[in-house]
């Protein structure tokens, strides 16, 4: 369905559809959720902002973490669980990390049942590669285009099952049944518009799975595609759900820094997993100077040991280039600030002097292609220039670990827009496995919720009228400010004041700026008409980006410690007291800002605590 067919009815001419489950977002988590809900017997539709198969999951490169033990028989869910919790600096929801580690191998095998062609080991099993923070090589992969393979496999499965997809259709509001009371109420549907025509559409559905991804587009330098505007975060917040860990934003250590058109574009961690090392402008392999105490016992402290590890992993410790992402990103940032950066303000990532051209082209075909085409750099002969880039939101909608249900009945969240799984820092490879593990769980639960209701929820016509007014507001202003300028200013502010290294006074300044942006946005105007109008689409996305920006800035100011993806110059170390709690953000009573509350982390049972005793 691309919206070519128009329909309407007596109730105001708005096109309406009725389903048991609506999945918003068609990345890996959304597609997996839709497949699960369909297989559980629900009538399901996927609603997505872009064409099917284009979601940000296509950008995932390195692999999908699953303790299958194909290369290392000693690998197990327990080790994967431990690595994940330590990578997330123990801020993770332990139950999510446990379910994730336990279920990922079966979810990967299922992709193979549906036609995915993973790279193989010599025994013919699914190959597994090394990544930062993982004790064993455990990333199932296809060269360096694993995300594309996963989304294509799920897309083809979806098509085979005949699930409806509403492409290029943007949801702007979650609708609730007014008879379920104010406060969290219960989900009754969703309101949105077709990008192609600008016409409105209402989905009546008792279950909604949010699978909208992250919010990196609020930052200037980011690896994220345009869709990552925090829609699910903002929609859920406005619907009454809480967001957790919003201060924890992952800056990937290796983004391209040149040319300007690709600044921020991801350079996969596989480059380091396959032997790439980081060097400053003086030619020093500087990561040895940045090994934190927490990871010292398992990290090589000489170049000789680090180099031996690639061939003999049993008897040597891992190179410091493979520390978790937050550690590497901070180290690179410090080197650049100390004046040891490259001409374009980055650091060198060198694999050319360490591996043969054949090896590089075989293991990293997309990276070879990307640098050749976009930067005119041959990575088999030269070092890459890279620097940190805004990459992943650990923070998101607070959900129940078993079902991915939020506090709003009927509202589920999965993938990057959900919170808890990754704590304060996500390990590479854990997002693709997150999508398929929790996608299935959310789809199952959403279908069960719909089936268990005695009667379908009702949507209020007043709410539809209000959603329509809100969506059209930017057309009502004459001569107001252009949304593109406001977006650029917001991105610059988030980069400068809520970036990789934070400080109290800067965060306070950011919060003042957020209020200014709110005022500017109220006077924002768009030109043209509703048909495929990107200025209008941006105006609506911008509301979400700003709301999410406010959540991050406020939570970052409140958390007075440094932990994983949240680094405070004025509070440089972790604080055990802060390590025991989440910050929960909710919409305030007037609906024009957000409130913060502290909430204790759930207590880990003793049988799991034993894995952290050494």
């Amino acid at each position, binding site marked *: 369905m*691309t919206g070519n067919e128009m329909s309407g009815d007596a109730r105001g001419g708005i096109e309406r559809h009725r389903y048991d489950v609506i999945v918003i977002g068609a990345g890996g988590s959304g597609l997996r959720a839709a497949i699960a809900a369909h297989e559980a017997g629900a009538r399901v539709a996927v609603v997505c902002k*872009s*064409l*099917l*198969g*284009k*979601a*940000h999951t*296509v*950008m995932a490169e390195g692999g999908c973490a699953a303790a299958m033990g*194909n290369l290392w028989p000693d690998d197990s869910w327990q080790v994967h669980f431990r690595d994940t919790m330590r990578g997330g600096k123990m801020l993770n929801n332990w139950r999510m990390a446990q379910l994730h580690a336990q279920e990922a191998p079966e979810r990967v*095998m299922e992709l193979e*049942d*549906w*036609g995915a*062609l*993973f*790279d*193989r080991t010599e025994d*013919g*099993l*699914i*190959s597994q590669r090394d990544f930062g923070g993982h004790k064993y090589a455990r990333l199932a992969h*296809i*060269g360096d*285009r694993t995300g*594309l*393979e996963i989304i*294509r496999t799920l897309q*083809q499965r979806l*098509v085979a099952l005949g699930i409806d997809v509403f*492409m290029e259709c943007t949801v702007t509001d979650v609708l609730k049944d007014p008879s379920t009371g104010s406060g969290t109420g219960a989900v009754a549907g969703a309101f949105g518009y077709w990008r*192609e025509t600008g016409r409105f559409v209402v989905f009546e559905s008792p279950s909604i799975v949010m699978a909208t991804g992250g919010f990196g587009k609020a930052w200037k330098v980011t690896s994220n*595609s*345009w*869709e990552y505007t925090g829609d699910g975060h903002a929609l859920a917040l406005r619907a009454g759900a809480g967001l957790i860990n919003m201060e924890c934003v992952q800056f990937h250590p290796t983004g391209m820094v*040149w*040319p*300007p*058109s*690709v600044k921020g*574009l*991801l350079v996969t961690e596989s480059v380091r997993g396959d032997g790439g090392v980081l060097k400053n402008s003086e030619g020093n392999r500087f990561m040895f100077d940045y090994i934190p105490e927490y990871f010292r016992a398992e990290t090589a402290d000489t170049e000789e040991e680090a180099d031996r590890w690639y061939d003999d992993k049993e008897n040597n410790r891992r190179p410091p280039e493979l520390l978790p992402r937050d550690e590497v990103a901070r180290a690179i940032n410090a080197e650049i600030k100390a004046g040891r950066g490259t001409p374009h303000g980055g650091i060198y990532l060198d694999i050319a002097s360490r591996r043969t051209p054949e090896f590089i082209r075989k293991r990293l075909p*997309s990276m070879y*292609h*990307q640098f050749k*085409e*976009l930067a005119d750099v041959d990575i088999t002969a030269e070092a890459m220039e890279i620097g940190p880039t805004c990459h992943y939101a650990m923070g998101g909608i607070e959900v129940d670990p078993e079902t991915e249900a939020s506090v709003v009945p009927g509202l589920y969240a999965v993938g990057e827009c959900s919170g808890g799984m990754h704590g304060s820092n996500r390990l590479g490879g854990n997002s693709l496995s997150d999508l398929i593990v929790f996608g299935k769980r959310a789809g199952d639960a959403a279908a069960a919720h719909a089936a268990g209701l005695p009667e379908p929820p009702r949507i209020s016509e007043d709410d539809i009228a209000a959603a329509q007014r809100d969506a059209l507001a930017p057309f009502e202003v004459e001569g107001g400010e*252009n949304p*593109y300028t406001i977006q650029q200013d917001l991105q610059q502010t988030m980069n400068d004041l809520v970036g990789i290294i934070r400080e109290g006074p800067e965060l306070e300044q950011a919060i003042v700026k957020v209020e200014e942006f709110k005022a500017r946005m109220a006077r924002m105007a*768009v*030109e*043209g*008409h509703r*048909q*495929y*109008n*990107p*200025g*209008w689409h941006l105006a609506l996305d911008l509301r979400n980006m700003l709301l999410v920006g406010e959540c991050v800035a406020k939570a970052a100011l409140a958390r007075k410690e440094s932990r994983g993806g949240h680094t405070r110059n004025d509070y440089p170390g972790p604080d055990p007291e802060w390590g025991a709690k989440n910050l929960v953000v909710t919409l305030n009573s007037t609906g024009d800002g957000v409130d913060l509350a502290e909430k204790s982390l759930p207590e880990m049972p003793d049988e799991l605590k034993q894995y952290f005793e050494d």
Partner: protein
Amino acid sequence: MGYDLSMRVWRGDQSGGDFGDYTVEVSEGEVVLDAIHRLQATQAGDLAVRWNCKAGKCGSCSAEINGKPRLLCMTRLSDFDPSETITVTPMRAFPVIRDLVCDVSFNYEKAKEVPSFAPPPRDADGKRRMAQVDVERGQEFRKCIECFLCQDTCHVVRDHEENKPAFSGPRFFLRFAELDMHPLDTHDRRELAQGAGGIGLCNITKCCTEVCPEGIKITDNAIIPMKERVADKKYDPLVWLGNKIGLRNRDYDGRD
């Protein structure tokens, strides 16, 4: 370094349109999509263009640059002389929606005609085994980012709208070939490739291979072998006889 780029961009919708002439400031290292984005942000806020990743990985920003089917994000301005006017038009083989955005639903309809992968049961230990050398053939085809530039340039549909119902195009011949060469697939899709897919209409001009931004050898590695397999099954008299008397496996009809 920076210079003023002259651009002609097609503006319009199904009812018609015309070229807009623009001058856009661009800088070193930029691609055509950067110029389009600057145009949007400064002069034409409602200029419609599809894009997602800006990294050549999603295949959304397909269009025609100086008449050639290309990805806007993978076309560097340094490929052109600074004095040259760059003309950007929507893909010609699909109906235009607005400006540079086309209705590509043809491709999503054709995708539904390809029967899904059908593997045998897993091995006794719950795993599956395939050799790397065997998965590599299919992996080449699975690099496809579905930009549909091959579909756009294929003259069987580009100049003959009436062929669309009978012809699924290079993107889906790739998909047929990928499934046919999958080490674990149990279906035979040769009849479908010829019947519903219309692979016989392809006359191997290699236009699709030329425009593929992923460098997939669509014609040599997918279409020609697929055509040979169809021909082998259908037209070789010895094979025909073998099938007739039950010496060769019969086709599944290929659908679950």
